[in-house]
């Protein structure tokens, strides 16, 4: 079985994001970019499936600007076999919407015929939490979102999902789209020799036009603004003072 893993290049999760003063978006100049953390978990899971003999090939795909090559190389260094870059924008500030990403991914799936697509649950830049579900819809496949456990059993997958009330386990028919949550695994670091090896692994470059997908956004960004700030309050010296303030000043007890 082939496993396809879509990976997104995003601002590193440790970076304090700054909104541009003119409201046109967030500042991406000289900002550290990394693979979306959920996608690292998806890549890790795919590699483990290969190590267990369940998968025979792991293909990673990224859609966006040319620089997403670096993200794909990281995935190759972790252990993916092959990468596809779909160039869909020139400007790093242009985010491709989940619907367009899902349409391109659906075309990639048509060509590659994977038995499983492992997506991240959410991209930590747009926080949309949509692409995997949209891809499953376009393909008419089953979906299992927010996975914290995944077992492939023949032509089905048993997936435990993190939901509001606790955990839900479902069985989906393969091929399917699974989106991964934080607790699924802990991604490995790429070793230096593997980083060197990754440079020689195949990375195919395509464009959105090659797939005939229109990536024009459906949502126009009117403006981007800073959230209302929250000021630090006061330090209290003791538990007694805390209780007194909560009762008398804040009125919440």
């Amino acid at each position, binding site marked *: 079985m082939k496993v396809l893993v879509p990976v997104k290049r995003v601002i590193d999760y440790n970076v304090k994001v700054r909104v541009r003063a003119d409201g046109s978006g967030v500042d991406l100049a000289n900002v550290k970019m990394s693979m979306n953390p959920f996608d690292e978990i998806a890549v890790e899971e795919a590699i483990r499936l290969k190590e267990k003999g369940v998968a025979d090939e792991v293909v990673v795909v990224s859609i966006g600007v040319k620089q997403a090559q670096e993200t794909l190389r990281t995935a190759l260094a972790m252990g993916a076999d092959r990468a596809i870059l779909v160039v869909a924008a020139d400007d790093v500030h242009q985010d491709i919407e*989940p619907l367009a990403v899902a349409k391109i991914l659906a075309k990639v799936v048509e060509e590659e015929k994977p038995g499983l697509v492992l997506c991240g649950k959410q991209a930590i830049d747009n*926080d949309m*939490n949509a692409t995997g579900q949209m891809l499953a*819809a376009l393909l008419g496949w*089953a979906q299992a979102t927010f996975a914290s456990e995944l077992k492939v059993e023949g032509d089905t997958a048993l997936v435990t999902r993190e939901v*509001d009330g*606790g955990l839900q*386990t479902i*069985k989906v028919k393969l091929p399917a789209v699974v989106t991964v949550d934080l607790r699924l695994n802990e991604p490995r670091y790429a070793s230096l020799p593997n980083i060197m090896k990754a440079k020689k692994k195949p990375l195919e470059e395509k464009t959105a036009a090659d797939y005939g997908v229109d990536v024009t956004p459906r949502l126009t960004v009117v403006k981007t603004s800073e959230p209302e700030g929250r000021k630090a309050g006061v330090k209290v010296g003791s538990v007694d003072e805390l209780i007194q303030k909560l009762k008398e000043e804040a009125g919440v007890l």
Partner: protein
Amino acid sequence: MAVLLLGEVTDGQLAVDATAKALTAARKLGPVTILCAGAKAADAAAEAAKLEGVEKVLVAEDDSLGHRLAEPTAALIVALAKDYTHIVAPATTDAKNILPRVAALLDVMVISDVSGIVDADTFERPIYAGNAIQTVKSSDPIKVLSIRTSTFDPTGQGGSAPIEKVDVPAATGLSEWVEDKVAASDRPELTSAKIVVSGGRGVGSKENFEMIEKLADKLGAAVGASRAAVDSGYAPNDWQVGQTGKVVAPDLYIAVGISGAIQHLAGMKDSKVIVAINKDEEAPIFQVADYGLVADLFQAVPELIEKL
């Protein structure tokens, strides 16, 4: 303008608070029909009909809808969609599972976690873990939105909307429910509680976490946790507060042994009053706390429990 609101139905019961908060947002867009779907949904529909300002309640009952699986629920919504300009749901894990599937089937974008309604086409939503607020205008004929419940007050009761049965599309059989692991609890639900007490990695162990639970019980509060506490096995996953967990905005949020990473702040910084207990006076949580207590939690928390 006409709005279809997916009621939050779990095991035949309506989650009234989440549904009523999404209803407040939905009513800004036009007359609202609430859809209650499930293996059993009649009781939920009766509850939904009592919410203020609801035009109509649709009830869809079928075994295939029993465990909120995405495929049958999305198919049902798509079958109803042509009569509506907006399809809305509270931003729960169920809705986040279902709505993007609905949107793709309708060839429109989904707009997740809406925190503000500017007009019928224009919405505000947080991005980058709430470090920026984006205002977006949709050009799609049908808008599919999930509503961040922590930013809307629930609508009141007092309605008496008519209830209508709707047909359920044939099941696809793509997925099958196996089991739910839900911890029963007498505590208030995390996203609707007036007080939340959360523990982080500083709490140190699952046994120590009982101290956090004890403090919560003393205050009639819900219990939350940081990701580090959940990953370390001190607390179950459904207690996680943050960018990728639950978003809460109680009257009082008490963070114990939590450093205050942006991913955690994303889930609680709209709380009315924030208290932080941390032994590190430099911890970033103090930058958002109204009342900060620099102390060892193993002393401060038992003392709090005793003195409250």
